[in-house]
C-alpha cells in the first residue's frame, strides 16, 4: 500500500532519538510486529529513496504508527523537522513480521536503536498473555530508548551499558543465560535486533537452552517490496550449488531465524 499519513506528534526524547507519530489507519490496522514501512518525509530531490523504518508501536484503535528513530543523516534530519499536521508518504506494512509462540516466555535482546522493533513485539506478546523478558544495551544509559514502555510490557527489563553503569556492561546474552540458569526461567523464543554480536551470541545457546532465536535485520533498501533485490542478506540454503542464497531483507525478512543468517 502506497499511502499518505499525517504527523500527529514529533516527540524528542532525552537522547539523540525521536519518536514520530503518524496517523495512518489502514497500515495501523494491518501491521504486525516486526514489519516495517518505507517512509518519505521530505520534498528534496537530492534525497532519492524512501527510508525503511521499523514500527515501534502499532496502535490500530487510534490508527497510529509510532516510529522510533535516530538522527543519522540528511533524511532522518529532514524527518526530525516535520511537525504535526504535515503529510508524509508511506509504503507498508512490509516484510514478514515476527511469529510469536502461542504460549510461554519470550526474550527480547536489543542494542541501541535496535530496540525499536522489539517494542511492538513486547506489546503484542504482553497483550496475548505471553511473558516477556527484555534485555537492552547501549554505550550509556540515556542511549537505551523506551525503558519505561518496555517495563510496562515486560516481567523484567535488564539493562547493560558499555560505560559499566548498568550491569558492568556485561553481554546481554550472558545476562539472558543467567535468567535461564539462575532463575530457572524457560524461554521459548528470542528476538534480537541491533547487534550482529548479539545474534551470533545466541546461536550456541539455542540448542543448549532449547529456544528459537530470530534476528531482525536492517539493510539499505530501495523498493522495500521485494522487487529490486538490493537489500539482501546471505542465508544458508542447503541444496543449492553454493550452499547459500541472497534473500531479500524486505520481503523474505526482516525477521530471520538467527541460525540461517551467514554473517
Amino acid at each position: 500500500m502506497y499511502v499518505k499519513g499525517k504527523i500527529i506528534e514529533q516527540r524528542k526524547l532525552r537522547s539523540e532519538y525521536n519518536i514520530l507519530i503518524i496517523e495512518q489507519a489502514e497500515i495501523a490496522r494491518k501491521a504486525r510486529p516486526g514489519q516495517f514501512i518505507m517512509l518519505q518525509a521530505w520534498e528534496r530531490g537530492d534525497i532519492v529513496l524512501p527510508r525503511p523504518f521499523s514500527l515501534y508501536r502499532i496502535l490500530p484503535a487510534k490508527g497510529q504508527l509510532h516510529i522510533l528513530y535516530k538522527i543519522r543523516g540528511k533524511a532522518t534530519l529532514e524527518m526530525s523537522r516535520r511537525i504535526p499536521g504535515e503529510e508524509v508518504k508511506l509504503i507498508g506494512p512490509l516484510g514478514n513480521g515476527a511469529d510469536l509462540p502461542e504460549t510461554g516466555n519470550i526474550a527480547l535482546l536489543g542494542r541501541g536503536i535496535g530496540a525499536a522493533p522489539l517494542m511492538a513485539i513486547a506489546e503484542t506478546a504482553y497483550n496475548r498473555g505471553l511473558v516477556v523478558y527484555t534485555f537492552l544495551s547501549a554505550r550509556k544509559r540515556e542511549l537505551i530508548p523506551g525503558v519505561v514502555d518496555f517495563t510496562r510490557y515486560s516481567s523484567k527489563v535488564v539493562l547493560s551499558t558499555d560505560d559499566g553503569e548498568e550491569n558492568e556492561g556485561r553481554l546481554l546474552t550472558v545476562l539472558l543465560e543467567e535468567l535461564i540458569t539462575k532463575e530457572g526461567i524457560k524461554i521459548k523464543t528470542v528476538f534480537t535486533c541491533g547487534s550482529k554480536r548479539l545474534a551470533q551470541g545466541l546461536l550456541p545457546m539455542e540448542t543448549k537452552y532449547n529456544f528459537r532465536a530470530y534476528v531482525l535485520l536492517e539493510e539499505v533498501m530501495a523498493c522495500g517490496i521485494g522487487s529490486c533485490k538490493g537489500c539482501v542478506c546471505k542465508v544458508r540454503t542447503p541444496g543449492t550449488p553454493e550452499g547459500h542464497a541472497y534473500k531479500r531483507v524486505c520481503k523474505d525478512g526482516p525477521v530471520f531465524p538467527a541460525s540461517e543468517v551467514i554473517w
Partner: protein
Amino acid sequence: MKQTVNRSRVNLEVQLAGLTLQNPVMPASGTFGFGEEYAPLFDLNRLGAIVVKTITLQPLIGNPPPRLMETPCGVLNSIGLQNPGLEVFIREKLPYLRRFSPPLIVNIAGRTIDEYAELAERLSAAGGVAALEVNISCPNVKEGGIVFGTVPDMAARVTAAVKSQTHLPVIVKLTPNVTDITAIARAVEEAGADALSLINTVRGMAIDIKTRRPALANIVGGLSGPAIKPVALYAVWQVAQAVKIPLIGMGGIMTSRDAVEFLLAGATAVAVGTAGLVNPTAIIEIIAGLEDYLVEQGLNDIRELIGAVQI
C-alpha cells in the same frame, strides 16, 4: 496558435519495432522484477509495455551485499543480475506475465555469444514474449554484460546471433560507459537490431570514510536516478542523430516533464526505473502527466513530440 484539445482524443499510442504500445512508458528492466510486487499497487495493464529483470541461462545468486548506496540525487547499485534462470522464468514467471495485455519485453544477458543465442531461441519458442531486450550493458557482472557493449564489433556479433535465433523484435540496451555511444549504436543497427534502449547505469563508486571501505561489496556499481538524466538525455539525442531505428530513452526519468525531454530528444518511448523505487505508482503518474502535457500544449498526438527538439 495553440488549438484546444479534447483529452479523450489525445493519442499516446506509439509503434516501436513492430510493437504497438498504448502509451510510450514502460518500467526499466531490473527495477520491476517480474511484475509480481507491483501488481497489487497498480494495474499493470496500464503500462506501455512490461519489461522484466534480466534473465540468464543459469540461475545467478547475484553479488554479495551491500548492494545499494544512495548518493546525492542518485542510487548506486550492484545487484549482479540475481535471477532464477531461464527454466524457472519460463515455468514459473511467464504464465503469470502472460495474463497482462501490454507487450512483454524480456531482458536477456549471456556470458558468451552462444548463451545470448540460446536464450533468444528458447524465449522465442516459449510463447507470450513480444520482444527481447539484449543486455550488453550491465556494469555489475564479471562475465558478459558490459564486455559486449563496449566494443562495436562484439556488440554487433551479439546482436546478429540473437537476431538469427528469433522472429521477435530485438532491442539492444546500450551502456553509456563508452567513448562514443553512437559507434556502438550504429554497429548494432547494422547487425539488425530493431530498436535501442539507452542508457543503462553509469559506473560509479562510493567509499565509507568510517570503515575506509567501498560502500558496495562489489566496489563498483551502476549509478541511476536524477543524477544521470543529463547524461542519458544527451546520449539519446546523439544516438537519435546516428541511427534510424527507434529508441527507448531512460536514465533518471522521475516525472512526465523528464519523459517529454527524452521524447523531444528523439526517443520513441521511455523507461522508468529509479522513480518507481521512490514512488511505486510513479510510472502511472508519468503516463497521466504526458497526457496533461499534450492537452496543455494543444497537441493531439504524442508522436508529434518525438525528436521535435528545436536546435
